[in-house]
């Protein structure tokens, strides 16, 4: 039983490329990830870093002109990149679920919440409609929706943004999935509502042992929520480790710059550390390390691609020839 020892999700060397008329866009170019039971992994990156495409690739939701061209995605030891569409369909919503940024995208505006939830249950379980309705009601109650019985008969537009996101989370939780991929689910929400959702997600993962990948651009959320973090830049993971390791001691100059550019009370009124330039286009990536043109520490060596190397412990990895000295975070 070697599979039993493997973490819930293991992604190795995942490559998702988009074959466009302008050229090959290597949105995900060799990503390694793993998440275990009850663990929260934060996947952080700016727009166009490939973080969402990584999430979609895990679920096999890549459309033309995109294609997974290499690597492996294993859920509980089962390979997903070569799985049949039928098998993938039975896994999605059952073993893996996804929560999106805009809950209006996942909820059908012309169907009652009940219809949508019962449909999801009946797609995977042979139960009566009444049993399915009861399950749906319990799921709504679990994510903190008041009077769930009545709310089942509401339409999505009758909910506020925060409540809609709760419904989306309730649907994701219906079958007690092994893995949830959440793509910027609280970006559109207000601070107090975001905090409620974060608190519930934290509790649910702890209780049910669901593994969670939280995709976001906001390092502050990740540092308060996740156990581990992986920082993406131009389709590759540039640094990964526990929150304590990466936040207290960022080794990749990009991570260091990102943390420096978050306004925080320590640097009130002073200039923020800014990363010069902007995220490169995938069609014109520099050779070697994609961050080199914006990096203050880059040398000629950086025209080659550095490996993700232990830096310093085996759990803290950085993809850099010239990592920041220890304790560089201010």
């Amino acid at each position, binding site marked *: 039983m070697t599979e039993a020892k493997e973490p819930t999700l293991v992604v190795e060397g995942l490559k998702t490329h988009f074959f466009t008329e302008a050229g090959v866009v290597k949105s995900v170019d060799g990503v390694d990830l793993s998440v275990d039971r009850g663990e929260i992994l934060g996947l952080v990156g*700016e727009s166009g870093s490939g973080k969402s495409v990584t999430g979609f690739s895990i679920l096999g939701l890549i459309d033309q002109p995109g294609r997974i061209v290499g690597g492996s995605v294993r859920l509980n030891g089962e390979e997903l990149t070569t799985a049949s569409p039928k098998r993938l369909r039975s896994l999605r919503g059952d073993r893996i679920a996804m929560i999106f940024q805009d809950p209006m995208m996942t909820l059908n505006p012309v169907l009652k919440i009940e219809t949508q939830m019962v449909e999801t249950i009946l797609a995977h379980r042979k139960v009566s409609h009444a049993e399915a309705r009861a399950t749906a009601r319990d799921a709504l109650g679990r994510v903190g929706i008041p009077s769930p019985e009545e709310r089942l008969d509401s339409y999505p537009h009758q909910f*506020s943004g925060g409540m809609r996101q709760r419904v989306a989370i309730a649907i994701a939780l219906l079958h007690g999935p092994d893995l949830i991929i959440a793509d910027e689910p609280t970006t559109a929400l207000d*601070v107090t509502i975001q905090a409620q959702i974060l*608190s519930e997600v934290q509790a649910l993962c702890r209780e049910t042992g669901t593994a969670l990948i939280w995709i976001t651009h906001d*390092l502050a959320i990740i540092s308060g929520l996740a156990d581990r973090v992986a920082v993406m830049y131009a389709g590759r993971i540039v640094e990964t480790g526990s929150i304590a390791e990466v936040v207290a001691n960022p080794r990749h100059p990009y991570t260091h710059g990102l943390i420096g550019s978050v*306004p925080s009370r320590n640097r009130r*009124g002073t200039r923020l550390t*800014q990363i010069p330039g*902007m995220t490169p286009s995938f069609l014109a990536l520099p050779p070697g390390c994609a961050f080199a043109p914006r990096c203050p520490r880059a040398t000629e060596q950086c025209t080659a691609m550095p490996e993700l190397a232990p830096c310093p412990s085996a759990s803290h990895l950085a993809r850099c020839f010239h990592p920041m000295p220890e304790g560089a975070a201010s």
Partner: protein
Amino acid sequence: MTAQAPAAAAAKTTPVISVRGIDMVFLKKQPGVVDKTAKRLGIARPEPVGVHALDGVDLDVFKGEVVGLVGESGCGKSTLGRVIAGILAPTAGTLRFHGREFDEMSPQERYRAKVAVQMIFQDPFASLNPRKRVAEIIGEAPLVHGLVPRNELSGYVDEIMLKCGIDPAYKQRFPHQFSGGQRQRIGIARALAVKPQFLVCDESVAALDVSIQAQVINLFMDLRRDFDLTYLFISHDLGVVEHIADRVVIMYLGRVVETAPTAELFANPRHPYTQALLANMPRISTEKQTFGQIKGEIPSPLHPPAGCHFHPRCPFAFDRCAAERPRLITKSAGISAACHLLEESSR
């Protein structure tokens, strides 16, 4: 320039912008199909309800100051920004510019005051005309207002672009050829081109990536120094406001609930809502944060709760909170909050 110096010096002078008792009610203009049918059939319908977006708001902004205006969606912060920028006329209340009431100004004075207050918007994709070249977007207003003669315009636009960190070589390009951060710089350049004294920044960095956001925040701080600007910085992001503002104003459902100098507000929040916001603000840390101490939803501004708008969600609410609207009480110079608890404790 230190943060305290202008605020202290300004305390004796007249504020650049001063609003008193501003009310803003948005009414449903057109009766809907149901209303029309009901009227024809002679069925009584409830009176059309209005959204009370601003409810008796007072605010002073002094020269050289950066005032951060914070609140969640529907709290009226953008509406207040628009009223101050002269885009919306308030339902009631007065707006003063350098101590002069807008309504009492001569048309020419009012025109000059309006040019002196400029606004920078949230979405750099929606706020620039896609059919105009950058040089035209930035150069149009100073030309129209007669600030720069036509033969000097090109050099003037170059200068403004340089100040805002855009290469003047790109002045013949269209907005779609720029990234989000660069477009926001174009929006800033457009506002600066008319030599304003006061900038209303409405969520101006919210749509930008973290590293680009840092660049734009730095630009705002440089421009403040170089052009001696005063800002009203509207944001939902407490981290950004904490960084850039000298004074913070917290709003909830159309009312100001607390105002204090930034350091004081973050160290010693007085209103329970401010306390909740600060506790739930994600911060970079190496430890896990406990979220979600505040329950409930933001009520609809169409039917705000009676008394203190925050009482249904407030952990400290008592009988009086549901019945009576708390006044904004000044605790000490520059620090005030609207909460019955503070009144009780000071008795």
